[in-house]
């Protein structure tokens, strides 16, 4: 009997053809977005960028324990959606959730302190980098096992619908999530119930260390699945905050009007590796460089100059953000480290962990 074993091709991903970004759509300069809103989006992108660059530096100083996942290069997605949401809307994120948390208005100091695991962190040092949340800002948590939080966002959407509050839930996830069952369960639930939920796939082309196209049955991991759930395929340039904001406004209003969920695939790129431990060597030569040229903040900066904003105004914003990131860093570093007593709190409603009498 012939036993021809299946041998998957051994592949050095870095020798594949690079996946290059589409050119900037200069026509997006003409999108109907007020200049003061654009200035806010510039500021927010600067915050997300400078905050995470500082977080990276703090890693290198061994001040952030454990691991962390940065979204450097992906700031336009969190920015466009963050700015389009109402303050009482809900958002859900993944372990790569620093940007989504800050984009809802969570203060930088306590968020930085949370990354450092300090008691003055936004979650008292209990959640850490991967579980950021801020109840006051509608940031309903970051979920570090992929898929589950899409289902959870549906529940928040149901609650809003039942209470008639016209709140919308936006849930962010990566390209890898589109291959887990909960993604499909969640889209089906949301559609049959016409929930006010917006599903946002941040397709950064890599599922951890593996090119997403090698492990996905379709070219566009989210958009190509949309029609299976009665949804319109929506692809957006995830490196253009204006494009994202424009799409976000549309789908959020659709949800708010009670006209059901949407699925958006924002194509973007993470400048660094998957996590602290990953140098990202699996990426072909020229790919990272090409995406660095499509850096969402540099290109947004250029747009604002084209629109007549003086360079000095943008410089002042960047400098102001730098000062605030410094302050956040000092706040975080000054925080105490949780002690053994903190380990035993907040398991139950009584604040304790005694689950035996």
């Amino acid at each position, binding site marked *: 009997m012939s036993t021809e074993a299946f041998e998957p091709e051994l592949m050095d991903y870095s020798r594949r053809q690079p996946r290059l970004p589409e050119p900037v759509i200069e026509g997006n300069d003409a999108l109907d977005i007020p200049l003061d809103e654009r200035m806010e989006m510039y500021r927010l992108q600067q915050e997300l960028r400078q905050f995470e660059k500082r977080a990276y530096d703090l890693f290198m100083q061994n001040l952030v324990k454990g691991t962390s996942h940065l979204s450097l290069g992906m700031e336009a997605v969190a920015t466009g959606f963050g700015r389009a949401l109402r303050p009482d809307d809900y958002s859900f994120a993944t372990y790569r959730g620093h940007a989504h948390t800050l984009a809802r208005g969570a203060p930088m100091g306590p968020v930085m302190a949370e990354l450092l695991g300090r008691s003055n962190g936004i979650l008292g040092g209990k959640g850490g980098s991967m579980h950021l949340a801020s109840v006051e800002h509608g940031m309903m948590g970051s979920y570090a*096992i992929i898929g589950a939080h899409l289902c959870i966002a549906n529940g928040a959407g149901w609650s809003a619908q039942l209470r008639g509050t016209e709140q919308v839930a936006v849930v962010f996830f990566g390209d890898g999530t589109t291959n887990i069952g909960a993604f499909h369960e969640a889209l089906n639930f949301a559609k049959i119930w016409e929930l006010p939920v917006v599903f946002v796939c941040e397709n950064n082309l890599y599922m951890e260390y593996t090119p997403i196209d090698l492990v996905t049955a379709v070219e566009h991991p989210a958009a190509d699945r949309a029609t299976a759930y009665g949804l319109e395929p929506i692809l957006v340039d995830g490196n253009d905050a204006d494009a994202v904001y424009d799409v976000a406004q549309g789908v959020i209003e659709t949800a708010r009007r009670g006209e059901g969920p949407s699925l958006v695939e924002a194509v973007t790129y993470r400048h660094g590796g998957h996590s602290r431990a990953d140098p990202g060597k699996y990426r072909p030569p020229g790919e990272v460089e090409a995406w660095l040229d499509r850096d969402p903040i540099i290109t947004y900066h250029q747009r604002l100059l084209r629109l007549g904003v003086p360079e000095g105004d943008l410089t002042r914003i960047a400098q102001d953000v730098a000062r605030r990131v410094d302050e956040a860093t000092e706040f975080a570093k000054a925080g105490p480290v949780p002690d053994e007593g903190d380990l035993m709190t907040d398991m139950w409603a009584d604040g304790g962990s005694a689950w035996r009498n």
Partner: protein
Amino acid sequence: MSEMNMAQALNDALDTALAADDRVVILGEDVGRTGGVFRVTDGLQERYGATRVIDTPVAESGIVGAALGMAVAGLRPVAEIQFLGFAYPAVDQIISHVGRIRNRSNHRFTAPLVVRIPFGGGIGAAEHHSESSEAIFAHTPGIKVVVPATPADAKGLLLSAIADPDPVVFLEPIRVYRAIKEEVPAGQHTVPIGEAKVVREGSDVSLVSYGAVLRDAGRAADALADDGVSAEIIDLRTLSPLDHQAVIHSARKTGRVVVAVESHRTASIASEVAAIVQEGALYSLLAPVERVTGWDTVVPLKRTEHHYIPGPDRIVAAARRALEG
């Protein structure tokens, strides 16, 4: 007060909760129009509408995930999973998120939700329809695990679970649903979570059990009484937090403990009770703690199910071993 079986008592509890609190919603496969595979939610969708008694797809992560989202966004959901063996796709939600959202959010988010799940043998369909894997949930911090054994306790514990600020996995013994009737108090009847109950006082041996096996413990106690042996019966009622003091108190009193469960033996609630007894009552013991359990095998089909589930005979035999010390 009226006489009800456990399915009716649970329906009465859900009806009471839905009427009393607009935040309470029920969701699960076939819970609405059909009234649930065991008819526990019968008639509730007609009374409260399809936005509060919600038929879902068969997608357990989706169901429990939605319940968690509802809970953190202000509702009091009661999810139903049809059988305990069907709950495993939702274990990611229950262990990774439901049980941890309070702690990881530094107490800012809470998950006041109930997941009702019929469990244990009885319909003879083997495996997924007959499992007794409650130890998985009892092992998980942040989740309360409740198992009623009687109709009145079922109502009182379920109303307590719905009102509880923490998440509760509520396991309903399939064999008991329609097996016994008793008087069940009307309206807001609650039984505290975390308190075991001495069902029968005795002095020679303690029979510790819960759920459907409790009835077999009762039959065993009757058989032992015929031989002049006085057995005390403890119904744990809550597996997490487990009522250590009730177990230890009874062990110190009788000096002999038989713990009877229908789950697999290894790392079971029976094992936990044995550990609690040796920690709290070692010097009162007159014999080793006896574990009467299902086997570390797959729960079988109908024809051999009775060999798997411990009946009164095995409980009596274990008690005799303890008495012979």
